[in-house]
């Protein structure tokens, strides 16, 4: 790239530039030109070939080569096929797909029609969570406008190609983002995964070949077609092409939505785009891949971010959540947070995930309560391995990752919790005590008056003391003390 910008907007090319509720804005920026070009060339095989050569991989988390998926769906003959867009976006803290749908809905509609033409489908369905009312509203407007101008519906642009798109609403279960569960949910069955193969592209919705792609994956398609696969394949690393959208969050100055070329380093993302860690604290780790991913530590700050490097580092790309943590974050608590989420979201179909994750959570809880021992740490590792090996779907197969990766990278922190009964980050309530330094305390009584449970006693103008048995560790006293006499131990 000629300039020094760290970000390239491909999937987000129109977000924040066009009025998403006006199809004219989209058409003026060469919208539907990719569909037109595909229809004009009238060679689905060549289009699929171009997508394959571009190196585009699925942005929903798995990273499966998109062109290969399209080819499988195109080669499976059936009287009816389907194009599905996965807009379930269930990762905690993720909003990449929502932003695309709210800012540029037509790019996804256009790509779905292109996919339909390539695989021989004339029906598209978007599975979107009902908690995304604005994205739904804008999608409905976009579909209506596209039908009015003849970009969707019967005889698109007079070429004889027909393609309809409808919405289906999900209730926001994380597991329904898994493609087989998503399909069952659309069929009116319980949103539970089933074993693959058969893959949806072979046998999906109503047993017909169904091409499922993520929102961001689709948003890349028109660009690849108009700019050419060579252009796209020139961005990124050897096996991960193009860009990735991340929702940058946590202890970072510039939280926001970013789109960076594959191969960028965490250091560039955190310090250049994100403008560094909040309050000048020290960097501790970055969590990627949400409940399926892991933590990357300082030693990975200069690792190029791509699908394969992240897996080698013990995390994964995931759908694009990126949470930055600083010295005040307790890694055992982080693992516990994700396990809590997994336990809540497990569909319960298979025992390793339903029961195993619950046990993992209980072990982590025990450790943060200061009641853990070294055997618990061994058990965490063993149980994690068993769950990974035996769970039915991607949710259970990846749910121990946050545990394994924090154990791997922050072993001393786990040991401190169980052996010394200390939380080095000072996060675990049960393991921290508020202490008054008698040399600094002047006996102003401010803290004693602030304490909601009356745990602080002392004579006026004499050093005060906190009763550790009644203290509920709310920290109210520390805020009140003007003499820095109270600290956490």
């Amino acid at each position, binding site marked *: *790239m000629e*300039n020094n*910008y*760290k*970000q*390239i*907007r*491909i999937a*987000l*090319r*129109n*977000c*924040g*530039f*066009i*009025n*998403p*509720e006006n*199809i*004219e804005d989209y*058409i*003026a*920026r*060469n919208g*539907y*030109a990719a569909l*037109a070009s595909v*229809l*004009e060339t009238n060679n689905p095989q060549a289009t699929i070939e171009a997508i394959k050569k571009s190196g585009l991989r699925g942005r929903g988390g798995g990273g499966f080569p998109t062109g290969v998926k399209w080819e499988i769906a195109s080669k499976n003959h059936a009287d009816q096929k389907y194009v599905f867009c996965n807009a379930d976006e269930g990762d905690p803290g993720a*909003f990449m797909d*929502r*932003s695309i749908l*709210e*800012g*540029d809905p037509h790019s996804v509609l256009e790509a779905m029609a292109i996919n339909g033409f390539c695989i021989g489908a004339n029906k598209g369905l978007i599975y979107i969570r009902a908690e*995304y009312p*604005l*994205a739904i509203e804008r999608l409905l407007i976009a579909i209506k*406008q596209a039908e*009015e*101008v*003849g*970009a969707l519906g019967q005889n698109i*642009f*007079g*070429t004889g190609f027909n393609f309809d798109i409808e919405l289906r609403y999900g209730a926001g279960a994380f597991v329904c983002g898994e493609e087989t569960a998503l399909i069952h949910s659309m069929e009116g069955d319980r949103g539970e995964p089933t074993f693959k193969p058969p893959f949806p592209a072979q046998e999906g919705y109503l047993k017909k070949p169904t091409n499922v792609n993520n929102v961001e994956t689709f948003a890349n398609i*028109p*660009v690849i077609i*108009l*700019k050419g696969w060579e252009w796209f394949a020139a961005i990124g690393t050897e096996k991960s092409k193009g860009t990735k959208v991340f929702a940058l969050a946590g202890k970072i*100055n*510039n*939280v*926001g*939505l*970013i*789109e960076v070329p594959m191969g960028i380093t965490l250091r560039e993302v955190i310090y250049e*785009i994100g403008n560094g860690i909040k309050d000048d604290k020290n960097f501790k780790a970055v969590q990627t891949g949400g409940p399926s991913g892991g933590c990357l530590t300082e030693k990975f700050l200069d690792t190029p971010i791509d699908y394969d490097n992240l897996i080698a580092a013990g995390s994964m790309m995931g759908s694009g959540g990126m949470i930055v943590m600083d010295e005040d974050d307790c890694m055992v608590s982080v693992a516990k947070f994700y396990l809590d989420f997994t336990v809540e979201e497990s569909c319960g179909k298979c025992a390793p995930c339903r029961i195993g994750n619950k046990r993992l959570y209980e072990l982590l809880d025990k450790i943060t309560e200061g009641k853990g021992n070294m055997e618990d740490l061994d058990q965490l590792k063993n149980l994690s391995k068993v769950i990974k090996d035996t769970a039915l779907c991607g949710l259970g197969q990846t749910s121990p990752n946050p545990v394994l990766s924090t154990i791997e990278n922050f072993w001393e922190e786990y040991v401190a919790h169980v052996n010394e009964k200390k939380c080095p980050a000072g996060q675990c309530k049960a393991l921290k005590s508020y202490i008054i330094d008698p040399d600094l305390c002047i006996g102003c009584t401010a803290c004693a008056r602030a304490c909601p449970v009356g745990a602080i006693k002392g004579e006026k103008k004499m050093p005060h003391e906190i009763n550790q048995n009644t203290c509920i560790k709310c920290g109210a006293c520390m805020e009140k003390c003007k003499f820095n006499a109270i600290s956490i131990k």
Partner: protein
Amino acid sequence: MEKIKSLADLKKKREDLQSAISIREQSENIQVKVAMATCGIASGAKHVMEVIMNECNKRNIPATVTQTGCMGYCYAEPTVEVTKPGQKPVVFGYITPLKAEELVAKYFAGNEMLDTVIPVNYEKVEL
């Protein structure tokens, strides 16, 4: 918009729209885009848009105010992009309703910058 009946029709339509846009850009109107995705709206972008429109009316400043999607600067919502005739677009962050009045008074009416300009930090694909 009427139906596009052929691929040639689409091309023609696009060219028409593009020239309409360039005419609009060359007009004396200030082009204003307010980021109105869920994040922006949650921070009060709808109200900000109203304030900008009212202030422009009050001061007789010709402006075209539209909504757009997320610009990506969640830390600085609400965000507003302003393009004055013949000038490059400038993105302003932290535009609360109060700041919006100030923005119109200082930058629209005069040429005074606010201190919450967000520098461009990305390259955008042009199709």
